[in-house]
């Protein structure tokens, strides 16, 4: 919500400049409006059936991905995380990393088509971080990667579950 509010302010100010009837200032504001409506939908945190999450920032173009609290708990103590060399372009469902916990190997798949621009190097050095805060996108958190998304990626989001739907899915 806070991020939506942040987004509102510049749009509102552009509306204000419209009354001064300058065509030049109207153009960028119409672009701003479009970006606003697209990012509002995209900014909701989404989950996959594979237990990954994706959350876009206020700009609607960049974001974080990671594994869900449920997945981190189900995997047990993570002892190894491998992440890709960046930047790398991936499609929804592509494997972007590997995790090992309690003798179990599993893959981390990209929830949407995107470009991975950075990975959480902390996970390679301290794999247990992913258990502590898998949905934490702060510098000390257990997020997996930073991403850049284009239109295809935004479209992929539509097929994913929001927090409530995901909760129902794991309780099934």
């Amino acid at each position, binding site marked *: 919500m806070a991020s939506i509010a942040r987004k509102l302010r510049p749009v509102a100010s552009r509306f204000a400049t419209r009354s001064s009837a300058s065509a030049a200032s109207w153009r960028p504001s119409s672009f701003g409006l479009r970006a606003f409506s697209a990012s509002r939908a995209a900014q909701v945190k989404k989950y996959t*059936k*594979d237990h990954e999450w994706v959350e876009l920032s206020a700009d609607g173009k960049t974001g974080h991905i990671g594994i869900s609290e449920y997945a981190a708990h*189900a*995997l047990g103590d993570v*002892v*190894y995380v*491998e992440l890709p060399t960046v930047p790398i372009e991936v499609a929804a469902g592509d494997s972007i990393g*590997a995790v*090992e*916990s*309690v*003798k*179990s*190997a*599993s*893959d981390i798949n990209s929830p949407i088509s995107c470009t991975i621009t950075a990975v959480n190097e902390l996970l*390679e*050095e301290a794999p247990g971080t992913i258990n502590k805060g898998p949905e934490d996108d702060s510098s000390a958190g257990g997020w997996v990667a930073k991403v850049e998304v284009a239109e295809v990626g935004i479209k992929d989001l539509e097929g994913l579950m929001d927090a409530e739907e995901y909760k129902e899915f794991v309780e099934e």
Partner: protein
Amino acid sequence: MHSNPSPRRQARPKSTFLAAKTPTSTSPSNITSSNNPPPESTILFLYTNRPSVILGRNQNPYVEINLDLLRASNLKPDLVRRRSGGGTVFHDEGNVNYSVICPTKSFHRDKHAEMVVRALQKLNVEGVRVNERHDIVADRPHAIMPLKVSGSAYKLTRLRSLHHGTCLLNSSNLQLIGSMLKSPGKKYIEARGVESVSSPITNVDVQNEEFENAVVEEFGEMYESVEPIVVGEKEGEIPEIAEGMGVLKSDDWVYGETPQFTVNVFVEHPFKKVDGKMLKFSICLTARHGAITKIDASFEPSKVFEENATSIANLGEKLVGKKIHEIYGRGWEILLCRVLGPATKPDQELVVAAAMQLQEVLGTRDPEFRGFR
């Protein structure tokens, strides 16, 4: 992953049983993929391999295995990296391995290890149980600690999960297993990834066929309509299976999938001094995906280091990107002496000694050169 009610109370899903007789490093994932089993099915696959050393998915061969011993062994074991997690194991004809592929929804780490325990109990093997590491151990009255007979490993995907385990039945190589799974280089390596937990082992003294029949019977108790399919060497010729088997044994997979690691070697000249200080040489290299990403060398005292700074700086330029497993035999010696060129003049013995240490740590001693056989 999920808690699970007793299988007997569930509607028993359809299942398949596959048995493989001594294929070469067959992996259950290869066999089953060609059959495209429905996602709700449960599959038991029993298989016996020729002598093989099998690394876990995220392990370091240089930390886990005495590679020189493996290569020199008369048994000529295959070296394989599997897709599931866990530690390094050795199989031979005295093992039967079990593998169960089931829907992830009904996956439980101990479920099928317990199945194998029940089978062993029916064969009058005493004191067997599943321990906290999901391995099967035998409590023996004369032993100070439980002896491991079976190790578990898992591969989890969204719809299907794989659990497999070894079972030591009557292997005649118990001594060899211990020495082959002990790397001389371990103490020189700092590795990311998963390190094996070594445990004392024992055979359960059961014949392979008795074990197979008992496990299939227990599996049949848990699931209905068991359809046996016997898999032999011939299936290994099916192109997609042959390809899958080839990948698991390929250098790019076995060595190239090694998690990042750093090797440190350090040698001191037994008597040579410079400015009254012992002459020393050290190398530190980091490898990712089996290839060198960084290499530093250093001489002591610093005067020697400074004199050779240019050739040391060249080291990275010449060696970064090289695949470690492709530097074989005297390769380290040749590479280091060539790159360090002038530095090797006064201190050649030292550089050669460091190279030999690297050869030992990385298990690349070439029997042709060293008369190791």
